[in-house]
């Protein structure tokens, strides 16, 4: 059966997809998709799951179980209010002084993997992610306008010691 594949697929996608897309990506017929989705829904309801299938018309996604909505609402609020912490501030700083910048360069400067921090900064609207003009398979990160406004700098060069810090980081990246 295709239920396992579909559940993994929806989980990996993390955003609503249509039956047509699933059918295309899994290379199975739409009928098979519909059957598997019904099967998956049954499985979810039989066991006391935290994850459920959310369907509207032919658009499908995975979501948290309605019984957990109180928890999730609280978490969402807390998450958005929580302090960034040192590592996230450092990452944000690098993007401020060196953006647009790729993740691998950020990782290189910090010496650690920044995957989840970037996700968090994106979710909070502090940075934005666009296709890398020099390589469209990857992305570059830039500070959001909201962030600059929030910091009270009208242009990026107004950040403290912008020139020097920028030069030092650039030199490091280029390996001098």
């Amino acid at each position, binding site marked *: 059966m295709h239920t396992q594949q579909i559940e993994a697929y929806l989980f990996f996608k993390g955003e609503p997809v249509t039956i047509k897309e699933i059918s295309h990506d899994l290379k199975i017929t739409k009928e098979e998709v519909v059957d598997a989705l019904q099967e998956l829904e049954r499985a979810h309801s039989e066991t006391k799951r935290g994850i459920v299938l959310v369907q509207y018309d032919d658009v499908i996604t995975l979501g948290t179980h309605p019984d957990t909505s109180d928890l999730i609402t609280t978490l969402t609020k807390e998450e958005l209010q929580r302090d960034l912490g040192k590592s996230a501030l450092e990452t944000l700083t690098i993007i401020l002084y060196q953006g647009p910048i790729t993740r691998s360069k950020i990782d290189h400067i910090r010496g650690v993997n920044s995957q989840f921090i970037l996700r968090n900064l994106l979710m909070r609207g502090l940075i934005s992610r666009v296709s890398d003009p020099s390589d469209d398979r990857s992305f570059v990160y830039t500070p959001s306008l909201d*962030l600059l406004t929030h910091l009270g*700098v009208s242009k990026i060069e107004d950040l403290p010691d912008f020139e020097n810090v920028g030069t030092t980081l650039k030199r490091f990246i280029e390996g001098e």
Partner: protein
Amino acid sequence: MQTNTYIVKTEHFEGPLDVLLSLIEKRKLLINQVSLSMVTEEFMRFIEELQDPIFIKEKTSFVAIASILLLIKARSLLPTLTVTEEETEDIESLEKRLKALEFVRGISKKIEAQYGKKIIYNQGNFKKDICIFAPSKDISIANIQEAVLRVLHKLPKPDPKMPEAKIRTVVSIEEMMNTLTTRIQRAINGTFSQFAKSTAAGADPKEAKQHVVVSFLALLELVKQNMIFVSQEQMFDEIDIKSVTNNEQ
């Protein structure tokens, strides 16, 4: 990109144990003192060719291993050579470390075979629906300024210190050779100046000592294999070297 230079540095140059293990594996030998003494000359040659300035620092750890190897070889050829307790420990520890590394290599092949074959993927995209501007209290120019300092402070220094794992470091090949020569001479109660002179002829005086010891060890190897006959009339006399010809056997 810069990251690649790190990979090159570490990939192409993996230290004395790596070199030693490769030499033993190349000959399909087991790790023990016999095989270690067999690859000693090749290892010494490797050090001599180790000229790249980037690796000068690494050279110390090579010399440390070389001195243990020469000791093993000298002792196998000269049972009268006295070895301190600490040296015995070094020898045993080297053997053990090589076996450990060999073991790790074996397992790492399995890890390699499994890597990237059946991947468990993370949840894909970030949840776009909650992407709203939500700055935290700790986002301020002052904190950004502090973060800048931390970032710059944590940038890796281009010239890291070399910590030397447990084996005592030897200052240089020359020093090591000097000590060993004295000890070997004491052990055989004799000299081999002529032989040494002839082999060291034309060599850089700095390297002469090294040639003497290595050549002498090679000489002793030949004695052991009955390839040559060595005699010495009296203490401190010249060592007389004759080759053993076939019809004499």
